[in-house]
């Protein structure tokens, strides 16, 4: 090569055609599967562009040619090394990674359950001992409805069912996302959120019992409640795992420990959202339906609960044991 005597313009003109061909191929590879011959061409052009980039970096640093080639090589790299077989990855996620993620951190899950239970017991106890506490703990609309003896189903049916379901879903997903994200407050926020939710549920249950509406309330939540709370617990578990990495990163830098924990619990998030979708659909469609007997609703709720935790604690065991 005649080396340094050549200008950047001559260099670009000599190679531009191959670069543009590589760009086209990379774009097509992102959209569809390339024929074998073109994959070979993509690979060859990618290597050549990478060599061109190394040369341009050394000889023409700071030029547009360098910027262009950097982006081109990164693009071709994405096309060549992108994960294939999305369906297989999804199957592995469902079969192995989600159950493995929840089983690897039983302590975090137990902690989440205990905090929620503590809130629940505290709320119920407070209202049982001092009915005035209900004014503080039970939301006003719920108190008014129960004092007037109105049923939950009647209230919910007055709105369009789809809209109700969507609003419920949005609230639940937000709560779950916060339970996870607040893990970054060393878990304090997650614990508070669980405690407050527990207080609310416990006090409402106790208040309903005092007004003779416990059966009505339980009948309403039987179908969707168990799954909803399970999803919240799972999100909180993920939050506590992140908190653990933050508080006690071990031999790693905090940032690396946090990223590793994030990667570990991400499969849980992939489960929480669909679980909440199912719960919200049931809450909007099944729970308020008077035609469905309470027994059927309760068995649906219990079946979902059993399937959810049964799968988490037994699925994918054979594989995760070896890895």
């Amino acid at each position: 090569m005649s080396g340094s005597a050549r200008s950047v313009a001559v260099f670009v003109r000599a190679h531009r055609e191959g670069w543009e061909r590589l760009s086209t191929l990379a774009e097509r590879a992102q959209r569809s599967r390339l024929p074998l011959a073109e994959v070979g061409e993509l690979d060859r052009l990618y290597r050549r562009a990478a060599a061109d980039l190394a040369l341009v970096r050394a000889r023409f640093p700071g030029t547009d040619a360098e910027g262009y080639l950097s982006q081109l090589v990164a693009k071709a790299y994405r096309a060549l090394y992108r994960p294939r077989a999305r369906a297989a990855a999804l199957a592995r996620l469902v079969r192995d990674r989600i159950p493995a993620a929840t089983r690897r951190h039983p302590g975090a899950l137990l902690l989440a359950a205990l905090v929620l239970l503590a809130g629940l017991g505290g709320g119920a106890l407070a209202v049982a001992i001092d009915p005035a506490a209900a004014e503080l703990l039970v939301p006003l609309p719920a108190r008014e409805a129960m004092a007037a003896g109105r049923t939950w189903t009647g209230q919910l049916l007055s709105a369009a069912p789809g809209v109700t379901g969507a609003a419920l879903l949005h609230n639940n997903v937000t709560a779950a996302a916060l339970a996870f994200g607040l893990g970054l407050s060393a878990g304090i926020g997650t614990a508070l959120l669980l405690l407050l939710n527990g207080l609310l549920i416990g006090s409402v249950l106790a208040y309903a019992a005092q007004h003779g509406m416990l059966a009505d309330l339980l009948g309403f939540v039987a179908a969707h409640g168990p799954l909803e709370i399970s999803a919240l617990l799972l999100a909180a578990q993920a939050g506590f795992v992140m908190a653990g990495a933050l508080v006690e990163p071990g031999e790693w830098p905090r940032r690396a420990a946090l990223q590793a924990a994030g990667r570990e619990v991400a499969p849980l998030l992939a489960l929480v959202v669909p679980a909440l979708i199912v719960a919200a659909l049931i809450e909007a469609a099944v729970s308020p339906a008077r035609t469905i007997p309470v027994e059927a609703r309760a068995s649906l709720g219990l079946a979902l609960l059993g399937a959810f935790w049964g799968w988490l604690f037994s699925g994918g065991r054979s594989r995760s044991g070896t890895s």
Partner: protein
Amino acid sequence: MDERPTLELLTPERVAVTLELSGIGARALAWLADALCIFLLSVTGLLVYSISGDLLRDLEALSLAGQLLTAVSVLLAGWGWDVVWELLGEGQTPGKRLAGIRVVKADGGPPGLSESLLRNVLRAMELPLGYAPAILSVALGSRRQRLGDLVAGTLVVRQRRYDLSRYDRPAEAAARRFPQLRGRARPALAAEGFERLSEFLRRRPDLEGKARSRVAAVLAKTLAVRAGVVTPEEADAEAFLEAFAAWYAEGA
């Protein structure tokens, strides 16, 4: 060169690639554009729903389908929008595409389901605070990462549009007027300097008359001294610069 923060990565072939990280402006633009898309979709959805809602409520079977559709679409609009687009669009939502930015992993690859879920679910922490933590950490952090980026290990890089036509073979007419530059233009200028010169030539129609001729005169004088030729008349400065760029691009 300039001090813009960059992502340095090494491909498996051990070629170093430098990608420029996106600043707060482009990211805010992308967010706004996505928010607008979601808003318009929601309005359309509500319109369709309010027109067909009564029908759906009458027919029990259709009602359930309507609920499913509504619930999932609200979820997609509010929460799943970014996740779905980042997976399908190789790290780009429509808003990010418009703003010319892209989400990448630390190795330059596109984000997967885990990364995308993590970085977007953690928005729940920033939205109630008016995105203030995100704005601060993107504006001040050395790697321009939000909380979600930090946990997911992702970065947002700029996608510039480069115009390689400045390197095209130049018109001969421009070069011919100043033949004394043959063999002198190339050694007098580094590659970066050529780009500055061609940048001036490209953008000069936008410059105000006086400023334009002043910059041209200064550039022409500097380059003439470097190349060791006589400084051209001020009226000829731009023609001289064109010729200079042409001889340089010619490789001589």
